[in-house]
């Protein structure tokens, strides 16, 4: 068994026990990226010398007696996370050559735990998209079928894990950008509770929604990574959550007596038959293991996407005002004055979808429209959050699909923004309410002869990631889909 099928936990155990060095592990991972990523486009940058140097440092720390939870584990980073020495492009011409002088807190914590940065992964520009087709540097391909999209915006990080190039990666999720690509590529993806993981060093998209989270090939690895990432950070005032604790929900605690809520809104209109059947089958499987299935309602689900697009674009229009061509990033040549420097730099630097969202967000916040759009969307958000509060009175976790369809083809939705936005219909509400959401593969659909994964999504009350892991672990054991690796000729385990 090569490294690419090993879990992060298994790699760390081997490196800790000196069976294999971090340097050796890193070299193999880099070779694998070099070998196959030319067909997938998941990585925007790797730096062999730097990665091997970081790995040698991990070996040195182990020799000095340190115990490292992620010793020698290669981790890929979505390219909106700052890591010293690497560019942080956000998939944008604006930041094409930007090299941040500091590590994001999440990156620093991975390194402190002995992980080795394998490289930076492709994404929709500034994380705005659901297919990774909005990257200025070309699309990412789904390793299950190369003419299909991997989802987005964290498509590169999902594919790095799905294709066995890295056992772990980080993404960011503002409206589904970890969970939807996890579903499309057959991996585990977690959007933690709002405030669980520090966003310091994550390029901001929509600050009341953004969270950093892991992709992995097993629930155990995702839980291991969250343990490393979680915890307060002085550099992010919103990162204040309770200490991560799984004492009441041990990973292998099973589902006996747990109540799983099935919201009817997540199984109706627009949800593909194969997706519905796979997730219903997952629910029945858990019932067979002792869980109780209960019907719940999330009646405001149809309004989640409209509310999300007002709130997310409003916040984005404000956050992206910092890209002015003065302090870093692109500057348009020969401006006649400062106003032209701003306007031309931003026109040259931002792609069509980013401009569209800046315009929509600015409109929603502008004089005369603020009350009609932004303020109304915030009230809608309160009702959407209240739906979940009510649901959790009768169940412990909610189960539904992560996306209404399996992966769609590259180019299929890229000409119609509204159609693309619908891809987040089952994930956006979770961000609006600040709740944790966990996706794992639960089945497959066949499209044009291609076998495409289907993801199940568990949503829990704020702070209850451990419960999500526990339920998902039970499902993972039942399906046997742990450690799934895609090859273009089908799946291998």
């Amino acid at each position: 068994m090569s490294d690419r099928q090993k879990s992060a936990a298994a790699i760390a155990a081997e490196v800790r026990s000196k069976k294999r060095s971090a340097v050796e592990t890193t070299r193999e991972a880099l070779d694998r990226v070099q070998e196959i990523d030319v067909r997938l486009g998941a990585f925007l940058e790797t730096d062999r010398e730097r990665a091997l140097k970081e790995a040698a440092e991990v070996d040195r720390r182990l020799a000095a007696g340190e115990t490292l939870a992620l010793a020698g584990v290669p981790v890929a980073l979505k390219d909106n996370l700052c890591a010293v020495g690497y560019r942080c492009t956000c998939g944008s011409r604006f930041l094409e050559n930007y090299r941040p002088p500091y590590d994001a807190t999440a990156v620093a914590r991975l390194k402190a735990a002995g992980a080795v940065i394998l490289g930076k992964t492709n994404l929709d520009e500034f994380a705005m998209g659901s297919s990774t087709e909005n990257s200025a540097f070309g699309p990412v391909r789904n390793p299950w079928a190369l003419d299909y999209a991997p989802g987005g915006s964290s498509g590169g990080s999902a594919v790095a894990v799905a294709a066995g190039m890295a056992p772990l990666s980080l993404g960011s999720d503002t409206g589904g950008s970890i969970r939807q690509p996890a579903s499309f590529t057959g991996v585990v993806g977690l959007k933690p509770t709002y405030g669980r993981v520090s966003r310091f060093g994550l390029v901001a998209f929509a600050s009341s929604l953004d969270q950093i989270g892991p992709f992995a090939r097993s629930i155990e690895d995702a839980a291991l990574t969250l343990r490393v990432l979680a915890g307060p950070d002085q550099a992010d005032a919103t990162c204040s959550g309770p200490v991560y604790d799984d004492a009441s929900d041990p990973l292998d605690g099973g589902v006996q007596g747990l109540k799983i809520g099935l919201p009817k809104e997540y199984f109706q209109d627009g949800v593909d038959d194969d997706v519905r059947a796979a997730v219903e089958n997952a629910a029945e499987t858990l019932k067979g293991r002792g869980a109780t299935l209960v019907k719940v309602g999330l009646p405001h689900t149809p309004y989640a996407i409209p509310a999300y697009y007002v709130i997310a674009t409003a916040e984005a229009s404000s956050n992206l005002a910092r890209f002015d061509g003065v302090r870093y990033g692109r500057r348009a040549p020969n401006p006649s004055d400062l106003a032209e420097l701003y306007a031309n730099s931003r026109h040259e630097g931002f792609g069509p979808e980013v401009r569209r969202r800046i315009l929509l967000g600015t409109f929603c916040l502008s004089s005369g429209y603020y009350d009609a759009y932004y303020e109304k969307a915030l009230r809608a958000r309160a009702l959407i959050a209240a739906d979940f509060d009510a649901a959790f009175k009768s169940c412990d976790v909610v189960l539904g699909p992560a996306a209404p369809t399996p992966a769609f083809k590259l180019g299929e939705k890229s000409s119609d923004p509204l159609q693309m936005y619908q891809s987040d219909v089952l994930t956006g509400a979770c961000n609006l309410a600040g709740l944790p959401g966990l996706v794992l593969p639960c089945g497959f659909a066949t499209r044009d002869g291609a076998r495409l994964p289907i993801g199940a999504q568990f949503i829990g009350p704020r702070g209850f990631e451990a419960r999500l892991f526990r339920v998902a672990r039970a499902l993972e054991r039942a399906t046997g889909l742990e450690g799934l690796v895609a090859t273009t000729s089908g799946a291998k385990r």
Partner: protein
Amino acid sequence: MIDRAQVAHVAALAKLSLTEAELDAYARELGAIVRYVERIAEMPLEGVSPLAHGGGAVDRFREDAPKDSLPRDVALGSAPDRADLYFRVPRMIAEP
């Protein structure tokens, strides 16, 4: 509804220059998106308090104590144009 003039106004607010063709395209696309998000108004929003974030937690504060920050040269290291210890931009006030 959003028309071309509104897109131009919003683009100016957002400090984005747009070509004539882009103004047309964005007026059409944003018009459709705005019509779509307007369905929020169907919801029973009367008397509901706006929710700015779903975090549940309030902001935490830290001691306002001075500490090291990025060295000046590092902070200026990514500047597209600089002069000595400053970012350089085109003149914005006319000469007297």
